[in-house]
């Protein structure tokens, strides 16, 4: 099907085929916490549409966890940008946890990955599908997103936007207010629920039209995630996830796996084990919650990190791990550091080692 052709009419039958007299049509808006989705929702509110927001928690979201864990983030006021956006717009926000369902998107993306392990096209299709299910369950009429034609290399192209509409099952009930004038008319436009003439024709990667519209609406303080809201777009994070899959021999993960990939310095000195090294007090506190599930080490003669060992280790491996643990603590320049090593049964013992000099750590050990 040509992208210029209108999408087929939706086969779904929302509970609310006709609103009560005088009641507005209802749209569910995908709210990321960024500017574009905020503007798209505002454009609909300006047309008298009842809008409620939906936000999905996949486990890979940048905000939230990293703010909670790292010390340096504590100085900044913590805020959930999606909730903040909803407050600015005066709309409800429904936050949906999709951790388990999302695994298939990450592990088996039909349309492949982007520059890193980001399955953006599959992800957008998944989220619009979940929004479509929510729309049907709650008697809403259509879905809106903040997508802009040509803004993203995978999911926001002229040829992939219809793919999202089709594979999500939303079809012509998916409206992109910020670029709708460049796309075939959707059901809300054809039915006159919204005025197509008041929709927009944003195109390309420039942010100037969005910033101008934000100024028009009086939005001064907004997040600019620009693809940075998902860890899967991060090269280093993707490298760690690829390492996890390759060393385990299968493309699977649990929630704790992807959490731990966000935290600490990861080193793989041997193929059969890696170290997760806390970088500050916040990360050490976070890793404390996992110490009963991993062999772990920490210095007792000096301040230093808590280090988890992911894998099975022998005595030589433990000695190496201890030298590395000493390297990342305050005893790094001393002749010897005393450490405690504890196993998952709770048995612990002392080790005394010479810290490994920085120049003896091959760069390829760092993930």
């Amino acid at each position, binding site marked *: 099907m040509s992208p210029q052709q209108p999408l087929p009419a939706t086969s779904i039958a929302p509970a609310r085929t006709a609103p009560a007299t005088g009641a507005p049509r209802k749209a569910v808006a995908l709210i990321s916490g960024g500017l574009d989705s905020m503007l798209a929702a505002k454009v609909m509110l300006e047309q008298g549409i009842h809008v409620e927001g939906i936000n999905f928690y996949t486990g890979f979201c940048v905000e939230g966890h990293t703010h909670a864990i790292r010390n340096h983030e504590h100085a900044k006021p*913590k805020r959930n940008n999606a909730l*903040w956006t909803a407050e600015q717009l005066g709309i*409800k*926000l429904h936050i949906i*946890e999709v951790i388990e369902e999302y695994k298939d998107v990450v592990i088996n993306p039909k349309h492949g990955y982007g520059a890193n392990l980001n399955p953006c096209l599959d992800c957008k299709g998944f989220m619009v599908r979940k929004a479509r299910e929510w729309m049907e369950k709650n008697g809403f009429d259509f879905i809106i997103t903040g997508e802009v034609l040509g803004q993203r290399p995978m999911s926001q192209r002229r040829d992939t936007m219809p793919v999202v509409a089709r594979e999500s099952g939303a079809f012509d009930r998916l409206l992109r207010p910020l670029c709708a004038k460049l796309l075939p008319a959707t059901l809300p436009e054809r039915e006159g629920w919204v005025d197509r003439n008041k929709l927009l024709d944003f195109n390309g990667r420039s942010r100037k039209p969005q910033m101008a519209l934000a100024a028009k609406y009086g939005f001064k303080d907004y997040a600019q995630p620009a693809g940075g809201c998902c860890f899967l777009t991060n090269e280093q994070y993707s490298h760690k996830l690829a390492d996890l899959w390759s060393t385990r021999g299968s493309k699977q993960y649990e929630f704790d796996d992807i959490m731990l990939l966000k935290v600490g310095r990861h080193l793989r000195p041997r193929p059969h084990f890696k170290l997760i090294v806390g970088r500050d007090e916040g990360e050490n506190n976070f890793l404390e919650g996992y110490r009963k599930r991993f062999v772990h080490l920490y210095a007792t003669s000096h301040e230093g990190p808590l280090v988890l060992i992911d894998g099975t280790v022998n005595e030589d491996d433990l000695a190496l791990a201890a030298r590395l643990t000493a390297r990342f603590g305050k005893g790094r320049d001393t002749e010897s550091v005393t450490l405690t090593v504890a196993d998952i049964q709770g048995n612990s013992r002392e080790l005394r080692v010479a810290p490994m000099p920085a120049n003896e750590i091959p760069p390829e050990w760092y993930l």
Partner: protein
Amino acid sequence: MSHFVLDARHLLCPMPVIRAQNRIAELAPGDTLEVHATDPGALHDIPAWCRVHGHEIVSVAHVDKEVSITLRVGGTA
């Protein structure tokens, strides 16, 4: 009207607010829910979520590393 307690300790944001949201969906207007969390982000997220959904924050406490937020369910979940 009943009082309920939700243990959201050791969960990182946004999980405490998601757990609170899902629990509130099962409660009746006027019920109260006392949420315990250890991520200080809950101090911001749960009241923000309550504001957009029309629920009332009854009390907020932050003692040591634990956050306790009590809210009253509004007219709609």
